């Protein structure tokens, strides 16, 4: 697949676990994505240019350059769900697909995330086949879904 630099999707990966961050980064890079990692929700929001108390009208974050956000659910401080919520409440970022990852397969949790607007819920640990699904999702974002 021929990719120009601008065509490479940029994914923001959020996880408090160092090993998981390294793994998700490699998985995404192996699927021709550019990756930025954040170790918690606050850092993710800072990177995206959103802050807890208000949204900036003259947007100066990196949000417009991110094609997808993938976040762990269980994180100290701000959970992945709370991060998802903040993104979906943002007029600037609400269209960015958000994937939630969790090591726990809890139907109520999954439904809660999907209802809040998560694109997908993935079980950890992530595998190559999972990332292939994600990649497919990225190319489908504009077109017909499911």
């Amino acid at each position, binding site marked *: 697949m021929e990719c120009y630099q601008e065509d490479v999707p940029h994914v923001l990966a959020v996880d*408090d*676990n*160092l*090993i*998981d961050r*390294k*793994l998700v980064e*490699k*998985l995404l890079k*192996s699927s021709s994505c550019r990756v930025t990692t954040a170790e918690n929700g606050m850092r993710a929001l800072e990177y995206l240019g959103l802050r807890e108390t208000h949204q900036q009208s003259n947007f100066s974050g990196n949000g417009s350059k991110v094609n997808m956000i993938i976040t762990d659910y*269980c994180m*100290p401080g701000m959970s992945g769900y709370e991060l998802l919520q903040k993104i979906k409440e943002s007029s600037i970022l609400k269209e960015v697909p958000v994937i939630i990852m969790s*090591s726990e397969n809890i139907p109520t949790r999954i439904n809660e995330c999907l209802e809040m607007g998560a694109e997908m819920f993935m079980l*950890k*640990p992530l*595998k*190559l086949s999972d990332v292939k699904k994600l990649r497919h999702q990225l190319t489908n974002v504009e077109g017909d879904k499911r």
Partner: protein
Amino acid sequence: MDAVSQLQRQFVEYTTSLYREGYLDDQFTQLQKLQDESNPDFVVEVVTLFFEDSEKLLNNLTTALQQENIDYKQVDAHVHQFKGSSSSIGAQRVKNVCVVFRNYCDEKNLDGCVLCLQQAKNEYILIRNKLEALFNLEQQILQAGGSVPMMA
């Protein structure tokens, strides 16, 4: 059989035994699949991070369980981390101990937790030794001019 072939056979046998005995699961294979020419040391890098992270977690757990008033939420948080990272690299036996450990945390069962901590330490040391031996074999093969067999 020449030296390289012997080493390669040892490598295959050793790896197979690690899976058979449950020390490693498919997730370790996933890590190996991610290693390529652009990132030839990926597995060693991730596993090294795991070793460093695990030692910190085990120390934190030891301290947390020695407190007068144990904060089981904090203990559980550490075990959750340990379960996550061991699962991500395919360290199956460590992960399995963590599952039991979390149940004891939920029950605020100190004896259970102390037992699990010891088991976690034991399993960690075992997998660390075995992975180091595996990496050692890989080095020997490469130094003898051979290539490391791909385990499908």
